């Protein structure tokens, strides 16, 4: 337990109007490690990520980066800290090419004009550093890429900026076997290069294949954050589905806490 967390969330609350989506959530992200964020559909994983990246403002709680409390109000703030997110829907512009997408919002300029050659070169180098050698042309429209290639572009876009933390929201959800393996290798390589990686996934095999730590969300609460080597598949599944497993997870004696969240409960 020598390493200090790079990013630490404490007591995060987030509501959308009357709907409380995150409740006292905490999460620690360590450098050089893959932290898997798991939880059932609607547990609040994507929402948590959007809070970290400044897309949603948080209602309460603290965000600490390198031991310093920070306020992230916009995607730009997050980017300045070195936090990059690869969203579930990838957020690529289909009508732009690979280079244009990788530099979107942060184009390199020379005077007032775009410096296309510099961007294309950097994009090429970044893709190559991720051992990507399969694109036909860096000037290919993103719409013509396969799912795995799009995922790779989105990841390359995130690591282009000397980022410290890369958050991936279900990067393998829509991929075939070979492309999943490739993306997971990529994820592992990022962490081995010293980055912090947060990986959201529903697939336990993927999680155990690459994760060092596992954080489980249950109905918008942190059920547990544990080392991957300390738990079994079954325990994680229990954390996801009922919020506890043995002595891990949320205490069973406070069911009323969930009354407003459980299906069928009176509002």
């Amino acid at each position, binding site marked *: 337990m020598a390493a200090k967390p790079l990013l630490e969330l404490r007591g995060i609350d987030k509501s959308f109007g009357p709907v409380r989506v995150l409740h006292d959530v905490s999460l620690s992200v360590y450098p050089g490690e893959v932290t898997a964020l798991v939880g059932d559909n609607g547990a609040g994983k994507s929402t948590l990520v959007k809070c970290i990246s400044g897309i949603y403002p948080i209602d309460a709680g603290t965000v600490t980066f390198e031991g310093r409390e920070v306020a992230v109000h916009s995607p730009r703030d997050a980017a300045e800290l070195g936090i990059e997110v690869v969203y579930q829907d990838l957020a690529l512009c289909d009508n*732009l090419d690979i280079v*244009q997408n990788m530099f979107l919002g942060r184009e390199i300029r020379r005077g007032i004009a775009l410096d296309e050659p510099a961007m*294309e070169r950097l994009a090429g180098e970044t*893709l190559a550093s991720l051992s990507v050698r399969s694109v036909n042309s860096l000037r290919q429209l993103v719409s013509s890429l396969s799912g795995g290639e799009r995922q790779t572009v989105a990841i390359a876009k995130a690591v282009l900026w000397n980022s410290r933390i890369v958050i991936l929201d279900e990067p393998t959800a829509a991929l075939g076997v070979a492309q999943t393996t490739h993306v997971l290798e990529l994820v592992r390589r990022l962490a081995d290069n010293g980055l912090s990686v947060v990986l959201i996934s529903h697939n336990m095999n993927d999680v155990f294949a690459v994760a060092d730590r596992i954080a489980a969300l249950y109905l918008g609460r942190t059920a547990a954050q544990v080392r991957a080597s300390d738990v079994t598949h079954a325990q994680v599944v229990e954390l996801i589905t009922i919020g506890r497993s043995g002595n891990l997870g949320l205490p069973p004696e406070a069911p009323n806490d969930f009354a407003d969240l459980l299906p069928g409960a009176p509002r």
Partner: protein
Amino acid sequence: MTSMTTFETPGGVTAAKPTVAGHVRDYLARIRGGDLGALPAVLGLVLLTLIFGSAEPETFFSAGNFANLFNQAAGVTMIAMGLVFVLLLGEIDLSAGYAAGVCGAVLAILLTDFGYPQPVALVAALAAGAAIGLVLGFLVAKIGIPSFVVTLAAFLAFQGVLLNLLGESQIVSIPDGFIKSLNKDSLPVTWSWILAGVATAGYAVAQLLRFRARTRYGLVTEPIGIVLFRIAGLAALVLTATAVLTQERAINPDVTSLKGVPIAVPVIGGFLVLWTFVLGRTSYGRHVYAVGGNPEASRRAGIPVDRIRISVFVVCSFMTAAGGIMLVSRAGSVDPGTGGSSTLLNAVGAAVIGGISLFGGKGKVIHAVIGGAVIAVIDNGMYLMDFSSGTRYIFTGVILLVAAGVDALARRRAAATGNR
């Protein structure tokens, strides 16, 4: 597919080494894949020119008519250039026609009733355009009213504003001066050739600099043969046109000589270069395409989506004002019909015929210019062939439908080949 040499881009991603044959092959593949760009419009323009030229060789192919085409196309083409920005975001501006009329009226009234100097009146009219765009853009981006509704309301309102501005007399003539010559007179022959030379040289330098920059970074370049071919093509086009336009075209040359490139040409050309640069080479332009392609992705990339949305309406209405000035300059006066009847629909038609997608995210400013040329040629050629204006409208409508049909089929094709 003979010996395919490869090429190492930075970082070691290998790519096929560019050859002329390969380039042509890629282009054909793109066309087949449904990425047509301005090709249908250019083919249409050539076809229409041949048809009208063979039907009325005496008049249609005369230097006078050629010069006339530019003046005829100027107003609608400028408005269409502005519409490109709005269409790139998948929005529409239905008020552009009457906004042009209103800005033209502002110009004429400042010149006559207020006796302002010409440059002041010109700037005021353009500023009026920009202000209109600011209001429209604000209502769309910040209040969230669909642009179709906002600009439909503005269309009705501006029609009334124009009537009220013109007051009792209902027709305001503008005094002689440079504004009146903008879309009426021509450059002296010497200046015409200087302009042609500068345009050709400028294009060549821009192309070669781009080629050199890419080579220097060790990137895949187009084969130099293609670059030179493009430069030669443009040079041939510009120089031929200049040669025709510098012919004497007065009916009675002894009284007044009439030759030279119409002033409207450098005006259109200047805006074409400006907006092409803005859209293609600045981050602002990149963001316009991005917001048109995926607003949510743009927002997450830190692009101020609302501001981009407002700005395209400002650019559009600014160009609308410029178009209005060209309309007024050509007519020499403003009346309640200025910018009315088919002005807006011709401008939208020009953009669509030129190859701009109404779904946003795709298109260039040059497409509006080519589309504007198609519209002007149809109007002009059918007039020369003595078709009634009713038939001309019908034919323009059919052409628009054909263009939209080609676009739709190309898009289906592109979706199938993942080229969207």
